[in-house]
């Protein structure tokens, strides 16, 4: 009986998750395109190409920039925001801010990316005309059309969209901290900043680890934002590993090499996932 209950899930997972994963390793040893059914064995050639692929270097660097900036905003800043909103003194206004900060999380990335296309637009964009308005017009630029700023413009949009998500997880974690700890710290004369570092941070340590890992994993996988906003450009300046994989596979029809790129993404995220499973003890009975 137990097998019958498990069967549908196991079959679906095997067919659409595990078999593709294994096939991906096999594909990486071949050269092939969508249109020709014949696959040419190339052995580890795809991996050799990968090692000297300059675009891979740019893409990985961008993924890491994404990770570092995202950890700062989505873990550090989100934790501070959560702490402030859980402070008694802001109790009456906190629900309003909580909902507002969370709102972009619910909106489709296509909508957000199209909206930021309007914000970054060089002619009528909100950002440039805002800079004009406050007299900083000289700093205005075609944010997405400039090879230095494009990746940061893309990353900035992600922070805008996702900070509320991690913040809510921290709020839940902070709510579980026993009130006595804060009262004791207050009794000892600890100010708000001191209480944040000596009570909140140690108490939500696990949530900090897990959120950091989620954020870094997300940064290794990022596709939608650069794909919609810049398609990795100008040049390859805002490309990420996933966008590179997409372009090699579905634009240049280089499926074998794209599979090789997918393996790099898999290795990066699998390591992070293993650490996360270790830390959070998933699967253990409580």
């Amino acid at each position, binding site marked *: 009986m*137990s097998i019958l*209950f498990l069967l549908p*899930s196991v079959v679906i997972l095997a067919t659409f998750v595990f078999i593709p994963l294994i096939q991906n390793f096999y594909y990486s040893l071949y050269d092939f395109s969508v249109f020709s059914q014949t696959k040419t064995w190339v052995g580890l050639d795809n991996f050799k190409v990968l090692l000297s692929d300059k675009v891979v270097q740019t893409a990985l660097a961008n993924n890491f920039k994404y990770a570092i900036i995202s950890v700062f905003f989505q873990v550090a800043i989100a934790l501070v925001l959560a702490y402030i909103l859980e402070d008694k003194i802001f109790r009456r206004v906190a629900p309003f801010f909580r909902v507002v900060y969370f709102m972009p999380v619910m909106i489709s990335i*296509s909508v957000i990316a199209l909206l930021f296309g309007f914000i970054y637009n060089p002619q009528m964009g909100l950002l440039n005309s805002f800079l004009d308005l406050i007299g900083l017009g000289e700093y205005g630029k075609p944010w997405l059309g400039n090879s230095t700023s494009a990746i940061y413009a893309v990353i900035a949009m992600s922070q805008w969209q996702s900070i509320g998500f991690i913040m809510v997880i921290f709020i*839940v974690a902070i709510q579980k901290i026993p009130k006595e700890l804060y009262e004791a710290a207050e009794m000892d004369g600890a100010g708000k900043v001191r209480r944040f570092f000596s009570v909140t941070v140690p108490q939500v340590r696990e949530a900090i680890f897990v959120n950091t890992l989620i954020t870094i994993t997300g940064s290794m996988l990022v596709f939608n934002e650069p794909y919609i906003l810049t398609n990795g450009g100008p040049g390859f300046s805002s490309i990420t590993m996933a966008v590179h994989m997409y372009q090699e596979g579905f634009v240049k029809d280089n499926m074998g090499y794209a599979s090789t790129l997918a393996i790099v993404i898999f290795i990066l995220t699998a390591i992070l996932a293993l650490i996360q499973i270790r830390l959070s003890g998933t699967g253990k009975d409580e």
Partner: protein
Amino acid sequence: MKLTKNRKFGVGETITLFALIAFAVIILYPLLWMFISSMKSYDEIYNNVWGFPEVWKYENYIEAWSKGISSYFLNSVIVTIATIFSVLLFGSMAAFSLAKYRSRLIDLALIFIIAGMMINPQVALIPLFNILSAFDMINTRLALILPYIAFRLPIAILLLRSYFLSIPKELEESAVIDGCSDWGIYTKIYLPMARPILITTIVLTAFFAWNEFLFATIFIDSDALKTIPSGLMNFRDALRTDWGVLLAGMVISSIPMIVLLIMLQKYLVRGLSEGSVKG
């Protein structure tokens, strides 16, 4: 007293409050701009970036709806509902089995499902495309529904399982004495008791299926079958300068999830925290 001094609304608190408000403006203003500009003409969006429209062009919404959004909307609804239904059914059955029985096989199945969580859509993309092609499923709604189910099942199963584990064993023992079968225990005891976590699963699955972009872009070519996230890209390319209509389409696309957020806020928060902190 120190205690009262700490609680008063001083300079620090005022600055903090202003920072909170400033951040709220940064979040809200673009959304408000999107809404206001969705009723402007192209000229007005271009030349009057900040202001209100002279004439509120409600027609933009009618045009957006009739020029494609209605069909993307319908496709999204079909794909989302099919995904939710399957994830709930298969996921709860698997979770029931994983929570109730103990055996080597069950342990293996649990490891299998946890491992499934480690694999991301990007990594399976190219083989999936080939599998779906081989089954002639590219350009059908199933090309989205089946992978969506597969990639949501692990998290749903683990969430449901940890909830099922907390259901007291005495309940089912007495049911067994009354002659209740496994299927009966599952449908009459576990499912009704797990209502909150089932709703959480619905919200998380809906949110994923409604907004998914990568598969939706690659597995569906035909405009008639596109869901909202990928459809909006076609919409943009087809409209060129009809920005007001595009913005109207963007607003329409966002409404269902915002309504869902407001209706089921507490379940979502719960799911986000349990789903991520507990893996």
